[in-house]
């Protein structure tokens, strides 16, 4: 299999060499790596492309513009964590499954491990760092504390953002809605009982807050 390359396949799919599988057999001398994959046929002249090297981008994070220089392949979670030191969101599965990297983009919860940073330009990105006002915990964070909805806490920031996004869409959630509205996040310590209560509490408090405001 290691001899199959894109350039040998007219209008054909790429044969998979996965990240862990690419060295199958007795080595890589046959050129499954690096420049060996570059096709010989020129791609049509593009109207406008950037990269593959690092390019300057601007992100709107928690209401503030932030400039950074990253390669197009850098994901939003890696941009936040590795380039901007915004580390509330966590990289856990890194494959759009566990929800630890959840941020809110243009009002919708998304997995930041599966958004390219360059593609997040022009969008309102809310991370957990933007929730608190001064030293006051956001009602969702406070409800997590009040209901002991965290243990190791590594899934917590993603869960808090998922809950915030859920409550924004469901201001009066029932317990059933809570259970079914948070199916995109996983916890390993088993804090779900507390999270269920926290969401109900936070929804009530946020409703009260918006009435008062």
């Amino acid at each position: 299999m290691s001899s199959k390359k894109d350039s040998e396949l007219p209008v054909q799919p790429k044969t998979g060499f996965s990240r862990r599988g690419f060295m199958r057999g007795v080595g890589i001398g046959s050129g499954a790596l690096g420049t060996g994959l570059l096709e010989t046929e020129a791609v049509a002249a593009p109207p406008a492309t950037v990269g593959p090297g690092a390019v300057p981008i601007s992100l709107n994070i928690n209401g503030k513009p932030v400039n950074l220089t990253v390669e197009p392949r850098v994901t939003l979670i890696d941009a936040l964590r590795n380039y901007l030191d915004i580390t509330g969101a966590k990289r856990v599965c890194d494959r759009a499954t566990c929800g630890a990297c959840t941020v809110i983009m243009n009002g919708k919860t998304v997995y930041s491990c599966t958004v390219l940073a360059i593609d997040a330009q022009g969008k309102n990105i809310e991370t957990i760092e933007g929730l608190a006002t001064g030293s006051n915990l956001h009602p969702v964070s406070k409800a997590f504390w009040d209901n002991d909805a965290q243990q190791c806490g590594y899934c917590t920031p993603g869960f808090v953002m998922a809950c915030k996004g859920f409550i924004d869409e469901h201001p009066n959630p029932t317990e059933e809605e809570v259970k079914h509205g948070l199916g995109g996040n996983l916890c390993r310590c088993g804090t779900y009982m507390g999270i269920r209560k926290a969401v109900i509490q936070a929804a009530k408090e946020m409703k009260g807050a918006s009435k008062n405001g």
Partner: protein
Amino acid sequence: MANTPDYHWPPMDQRKVIGTSPKRLDGPVKSSGRAKYSSDLKVPGMLFGAYLYSPHAHAKVTSIDTSDAEKVPGVKSVYVAAPAGTEIQWEGWEVAAVAATTEEIAREATRKIKVNYDVLPHYVKDWDLANAGANAKQGLEKLVGDPDKALQEADAVSEGHYGIPVVYHCCLEPHGQIIQWQGDTANVWPSTQNVPGYAPDLAQRLQIPATNIKVKMDYIGGGFGSKFNPDAWAIVGANLSKNAGGRPVKLYLERDAELMIAGNRPSAYAKIKIGGKKDGTITVWQSESWGTGGVQSVNAPAQPYVYTNIPNIHQVHTNVAVNAGTQRAWRAPGNQQASYLTCCALDDFAHKVGMDPIEVFKINAQYAPSARVDTYRYQLDKAAELAEWKKLWKPRGQNGTGTMKRGLGVAFAAWGGAGHAGQCRTVINPDGSVSVEIGSQDLGTGTRTVITQVAAESLGLSMSQVKLVMGTSDLPPDGGSGGSSTVGAVATTTRKSSLNALAKLYDVVAPALGAQPEELEAVDGHIRVKGSPNKSLTWQAACRKLGTTKIAEMGENVPRQAQAEGLNTQGAAGVQIADVSVDIETGIVKVNRYVAVQDCGLVINPRLSESQVYGAVIMGIGTALYEERIMDAQTGKTLNPDMEFYKLAGIADIGNIVVHMDIRPENDKRGVIGLGEPPAIPICAAIGNAVTNAIGVRVPNIPMTPDHVLAALEGRNG
């Protein structure tokens, strides 16, 4: 000098902070995303590391060439972990690693390392004992009484086979660290369950003095028994750092490697026969079991579990070596397996003699260690009451005519949980400020909170007056957080160091109050004379008498003395009941209600103790219903080293959980007992028995997935 303080816990009715449920101290930083785990840190000059892992389950490295990787711009260091000649024993084995200015560059460079392998034969089928050949090696054999005779004489004999697969810890924060190695010094920011033991271990591996190693960790994103040592990963990281001129290197496992190589729970399979009397009394146990812990062998799960005094026992265990990552302690090592094999076999025996399993479990509780017999009987009744067992339980196969069948199942657990050896220092400053200094770690269990509660209780202060300092290697050493040994240890050492410090304060303050030191007490922020509450000084006024000299006193937990002191002990019991519904058309199992009754001696913080039980049960439900390592026998590869097909339970998958902490006075008086592990033990067994009760036939193998359930219903159990 005052007499040695009376360290005993205050009587239940006199406790002010212990036994109350303050919210966890690390709640605000964690729920606001401000908690900095070591994997969140960015140290000045830090490089990003990435691994190259073996794609083969068994192979010999014949050559490795890193020259192309070294030429990649931004690469600062390359380290070969598996030089030519290394025999790779499992997929995911660390072959080499790169440190570079960005993570993207580091990852890309690993792909430019050329490795040649001689691929060797592999074996991965731990469940298939018949074909394991030389990979199977008999381990423990135990013989008590005359099992053959007892089987012949038994009124009834039940027989079954049962299996519980390898599962992963799946810590959300992967294993790894930031490490900086310069000359004979090293700084490490690891993710570890053992802050105090980390430097001594690393010192041996790097051959530098332990005094020159600084370790710091504030928060850890899950360990569950898999994160005690620096492991190969700290060594690889250290060498990358050294080769890069001493720049710090951040090196964590990626998710697939985290699952494949950073620990797992051994599997266990068994054929079991139980014989006994018509009245439900068991007289004989016979089991042939096998399982794998990877390439190395592991201890056999205890059989029979808890009911160890059955008069006739024959147990034979075989280890099956497989080419897969090595097992590590998994939240009560060996005990889920033991509980599953034993409680399922007991349940089948109850069915055989036509009895309610609760009754059979109660009758045979006579075989539990004598001190715990009454506790198990009490807990079986209590759990049955909370689960409405009498109303809801029906004999096997009598659970209605529709396609949804409801069933109940029971199982039990036992655990030690005594405090490990450790120390703590309490410092009282002349300005009245107090710090508790302890080289421990809070895994999210609430360690910070309970230490502060114990100090506040002991000093007559509020929790906000106590500053806790923990998480570095230069503090008085606590132990590693394993075996549910932390809470007993830190409660004891904090209690003793705080009372020792207080005794010193009494020495200084006594003359001013016109009393002897032993006549003083610390209550509500005052030092006062017992029986004369008007003769008192505020805490601040009392501390001012120290002049410019602070008090710093140690407290120690010595395990062999602990029981006599009465502060902590071992021996937790638990009984759990699962109430499930099974859709017999699809084989899908849903948990309706799950009851956990648990004792852990004196409970310092009921809220946090309940959270521990909820968490343990939820983790267990995931293992009972969904989780299993899936390996391909043809290629030796792990097929689900991800969180997509290695399936964890979500928030809607766990039913409603009812926790009852068994805090009766007879338990409280035993002192503090650890809780991290005991409630994580019986879940597979309780759910397995509940599913079996619901559908009328035994589903032998965990997890209770549709393929397993439907196969059992169709009699395809093989």
